[in-house]
């Protein structure tokens, strides 16, 4: 019997939610690391018992935790994130040069094939890799030393590398997204990078179609079609069919094309999910109605999914790393809110139920499908 394990990072600890394949009854454990900000937890596809977690506070800095028993027990591992060489400067909010300073790990992306290899996306934006199960970390400096990097500028949440996509077919290819520099691709295992933002348009930039400076909130791919990428940008939902070389808008009939997460159905690479948010200055759903929008056509035509979600007086946000899908059939979809609810749908979004309702603000949601 298949099972699922949902890993939830919140402002005040981590929670592990488990269910069988029906996804109706849930066991909740936690808080793990109570009182700490848990930006992200993610399991290794190569060893589901291996889970990595990013833990931190403003007081005591960054820690990384590792579990080798599916989140029951944890051990602190390496937390030394030091930029390679002299890090130089990027632009600060006021447009002046600002030294690169490590703040936190936003996202952990374990290798699909090696449980000891894991990537970390950090603020200020850089990509680190560990090949010893997280004991030591080394920067892949080719990204941060890209010729454009001195012009990168933070978004409201900081200059964060928040998304890492590893190409499941071409082991040398990976994608990252940085707020608010844009999306970058490497075709040589992370040594060299190039911006892939052609087709993006950001009216807040002096040159709206500049190669650099777009506030990309999230990118997603289906593992069977790694050349097709979907993006939730600050404003606009976008799609690329050529590995990011060019993008086109697919916002279509969404009530708002501002939002944070985007994800792809496990078994239908043309079915995608977003959670529209009213605006960049009003981070809650339009009309106080929490609606996931699903497109079955790869964008442009969207349907509101509301069954089981609050349809009045709802003013939560759903953050960029807080939506995910499992690999079961029918596909399960999960998301967490800044109000502390984690919602699950066991039927690809048709009906929703809260797994938990009163957690601290949810920062991230990941799911492991356990056979």
């Amino acid at each position: 019997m298949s099972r699922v394990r949902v890993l939830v990072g919140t402002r005040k600890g981590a929670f592990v939610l488990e269910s069988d394949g029906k996804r109706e009854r849930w066991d909740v454990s936690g808080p793990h690391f109570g009182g700490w900000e848990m930006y992200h937890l993610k399991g290794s596809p190569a060893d589901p018992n291996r889970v990595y977690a990013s833990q931190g506070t403003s007081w005591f800095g960054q820690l990384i935790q590792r579990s080798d028993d599916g989140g029951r027990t944890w051990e602190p591992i390496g937390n030394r994130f030091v930029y390679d060489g002299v890090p130089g400067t990027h632009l600060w909010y006021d447009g002046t040069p600002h030294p690169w300073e490590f703040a936190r790990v936003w996202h952990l992306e374990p290798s699909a094939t090696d449980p000891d290899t894991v990537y970390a996306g950090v603020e200020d934006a850089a990509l680190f890799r560990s090949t010893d199960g997280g004991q030591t970390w080394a920067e892949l400096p080719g990204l941060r030393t890209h010729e454009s990097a001195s012009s990168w500028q933070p978004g409201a949440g900081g200059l964060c590398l928040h998304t890492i996509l590893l190409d499941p077919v071409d082991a040398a290819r990976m994608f990252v997204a940085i707020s608010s520099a844009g999306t970058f691709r490497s075709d040589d295992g992370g040594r060299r990078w190039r911006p892939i933002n052609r087709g993006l348009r950001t009216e807040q930039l002096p040159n709206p179609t500049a190669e650099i400076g777009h506030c990309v909130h999230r990118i997603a791919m289906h593992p069977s079609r790694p050349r097709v990428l979907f993006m939730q940008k600050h404003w606009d939902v976008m799609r690329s069919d050529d590995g990011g070389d060019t993008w086109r808008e697919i916002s279509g009939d969404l009530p708002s094309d501002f939002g944070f997460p985007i994800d792809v159905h496990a078994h239908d690479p043309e079915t995608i999910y977003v959670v529209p948010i009213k605006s960049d200055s009003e981070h809650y759903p339009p009309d106080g109605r929490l609606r996931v929008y699903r497109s079955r056509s790869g964008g442009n035509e969207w349907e509101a999914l509301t069954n089981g979600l609050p349809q009045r007086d709802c003013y939560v946000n759903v953050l960029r790393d807080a939506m995910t899908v499992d690999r079961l059939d029918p596909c399960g979809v999960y998301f967490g809110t800044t109000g502390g609810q984690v919602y699950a749908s066991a039927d690809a979004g048709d009906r929703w139920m809260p797994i938990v309702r009163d957690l601290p603000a949810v920062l991230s949601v990941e799911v492991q499908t356990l056979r």
Partner: protein
Amino acid sequence: MIRVVLPAHLRKLARVDREVTLEVAGPVTQRAVLDALEGRYPMLRGTIRDHVTLRRRPMVRFFACAEDLSHESPDAPLPDAIAAGTEPFLVVGAMAGG
């Protein structure tokens, strides 16, 4: 023996009770105490002071004998009562809230 009191989050991280005791060879300074502390509890590295610069993290304070020693040189001798183990060296998470 040097006595060190850690804040709750770091006690839990290091899996210790309220107070830890450390042997410190040579002059008893902030640096010597923290070196000994991190040597015994390597999971604390980076949580009290920066990995590379070894500077105190901004929201961590060092108190001893009812005094704030946070801005003292890390190589200045700590009070005799700390060196003698009659008073603890306190690592404190700064009060920051509303």
